[in-house]
């Protein structure tokens, strides 16, 4: 992951420069480069595909608009995710009154199933169990406050380091650290509520 990210970083600068010069293809390359990661983040934040799609699209459009002002003080990747963070948080804030029941339901057609890449030695039962575990985890994640969830998603799902996350959420390193810690603990507590026996056996 690291290597890929760095490789992208080097070439990003060039692509950004070209995109700023009016090369639409360069921007398209940037989009295709990051759309999956961005979409995944949005999906984990919004917990449904429609909102995630909306958000991802808005982020790219915002990026396209703001690109002329992008001064490469951070990497394009960080900048993009920072736009995403702002947008998602404000969007979710606006939609707070949405009923959450539906969001807790697993997406019947969600790509989780296909992408889970079932190993051949996996018994169907363990597969089911795994999916159930994913579902509970997603439900717990969705109950987490946005500020905490964002940090958790960026760290544990996207695998970014603290410094990058700090840039993205525009908070000091210490805040990131504390939010991540508390977010994980809260998640843990929620999961223990749902699956007490598992919680005990693990601890």
């Amino acid at each position: 992951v690291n290597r890929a990210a760095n490789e992208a970083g080097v070439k990003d600068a060039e692509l950004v420069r070209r995109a700023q010069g009016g090369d639409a293809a360069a921007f398209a390359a940037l989009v295709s480069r990051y759309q999956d990661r961005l979409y995944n983040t949005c999906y984990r934040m919004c917990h449904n595909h429609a909102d995630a799609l909306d958000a991802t699209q808005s982020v790219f459009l915002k990026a396209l608009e703001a690109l002329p002002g992008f001064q490469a003080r951070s990497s394009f990747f960080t900048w993009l995710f920072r736009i995403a963070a702002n947008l998602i948080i404000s969007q979710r804030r606006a939609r707070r009154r949405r009923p959450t029941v539906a969001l807790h339901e697993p997406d019947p057609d969600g790509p989780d199933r296909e992408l889970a890449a079932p190993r051949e030695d996996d018994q169907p039962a363990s597969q089911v169990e795994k999916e159930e575990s994913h579902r509970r985890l997603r439900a717990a994640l969705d109950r987490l406050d946005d500020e905490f969830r964002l940090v958790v998603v960026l760290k544990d799902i996207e695998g970014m380091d603290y410094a990058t996350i700090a840039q993205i959420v525009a908070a000091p390193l210490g805040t990131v650290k504390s939010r991540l810690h508390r977010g994980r603990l809260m998640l843990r507590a929620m999961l223990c509520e749902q699956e007490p026996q598992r919680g005990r056996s693990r601890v």
Partner: protein
Amino acid sequence: VAAPECDKFGEDLSAYLDGELPRQRAAELEQHLLGCESCRGTFEQLRDVAGRLAELPHVRAPGQLSVAMRRATERQVLLEARAPRRKIRVWTLFARVSASAALIAACMFAGWHVYERVQRSATPSVEERLAMSREGEKASEKALRRETRSLDVLQVEPAERFADAAIPAEPVLALADKAKGVEAEAPIEAYAGVLARERVAIGGGELQADSFGVPVAAITTPTIDVFVVAQDVQQATAVRNTLAAWQKPVGAELGGGERGGAEWRAGGTVDAGAPVVRAGGAGAAETAGRSEFAFELTPVQANELIDQLEQQAPRQVLLRYADMQHVQQAAERDELDHLVERRLVDELGRPVAAPPADTEEECQALARARLSGEVEARRAVTSKRFMPRSSAGKQEEADERHGRGRGAEPLAPAKAAKKDEKAATAERGASAAHQLRQPVLRGGGMGGGAGIGAGKRAPDRAAEPMAPPASQPPPAAEQPATQPAQPEQLRARVARVREQLGELLFGPFTRAVAQPAAASQPLPPQPITVRVMLLPAPQAPATQPAAQPVPQP
């Protein structure tokens, strides 16, 4: 188990887990963990949660995203280009073709069909029906199906497949960059010379050998480089087969439309040159297994060819413009810009800062209406979609052009408006002006387009579908009841429709090809040159430059 000490570490547990704790602090924590069961438990919990989160499958962006992005970017670019004239940023020609042009073409075809239906519903001759079903319906249905396929958000799967297949995978980008870099080092003239040997004209176009002696930049046809990275031998073979199929001539008969929408490929005097396949095995290792093909195609064909390549090699196809200048010029001439911009301005009464969101819905509605025969819905949509452009001062030119076909026929206001629009459009591409004057292109009336354009200006006309065409019918349509259309007339009409469509799609490019024997003023063919470069997949990732700094801890 000293509580104060545990408190002291607190958040450090997470940081330790993530490897973000300074070494000394980490050592202290490790020491503490050895003796503190409670903190060990917490640490295990944290590790469990983090591990489970990391296990969550990664979700890939759905296909609609890329489709939507293409469209959105295109619109954005369009608006920026029209706004205080910065650099015109041309989103790919293909986005244009597949997004708006094909859409409008579909609309136009649909419109034309309705018009034809309405005109002829009384006495359609067998020949007409046959010809129409062969020529028109196939093409229009195909266009519509393709369009709805890529547009319809409800049909998620096809759209995803479409878009997923169309986005080049990252290694392709890298390889293409590399290929591009290699070429850029050679002098441009030399490159053009190579081109001259390699190019093949397909259909209608003769080999424009004389244009290759000059630098690429001076070649007057836009050139698209298509990079295809074959992942394995089977894929390479499939791609080669596809390309080989495109090197075969297609029947020149206008009525022969065996291949549905691809009939333009044939043009007139078909003269397919020898297939040019240069397997560069003799070159450096870098170029081993690399083949180049070149085609001269109409935009529609080019689109189709690239679609096919994308089918054969999903996500392994990348498009580049060898000569952006021409694409840009093409875009400037592009009538569609006008249509879209005008619509935006008319609707809001002022230049707009953001595109309205309903364009695609409208077009979708249009396509559905066409397919389910809901004429009313279509009319409502189309009359909203196309607006007449009111620009004065071009009347003279318009009169000249339109006068050729119909002499002293009085002009309806709607037609006048339409002519203004046309004239203004013609004005844009100064170089294309003489082509636009060809009577056959305009004389037959822009079928649905004129009718649609009239919708806003003359509301009374909106009541009868496609009214203006009724007042300026194509010659063959004048007496359908008494006289069954002759094959010549049918051909003429089919050709005219093609021209209208081509006109709408790409102005000057298609015309020459669509009109091979243009009797009075033969025009040089101006197809798009498509160069397909088949590249081998990288053998091992180790060959990629790995000399990048690794700042991440």
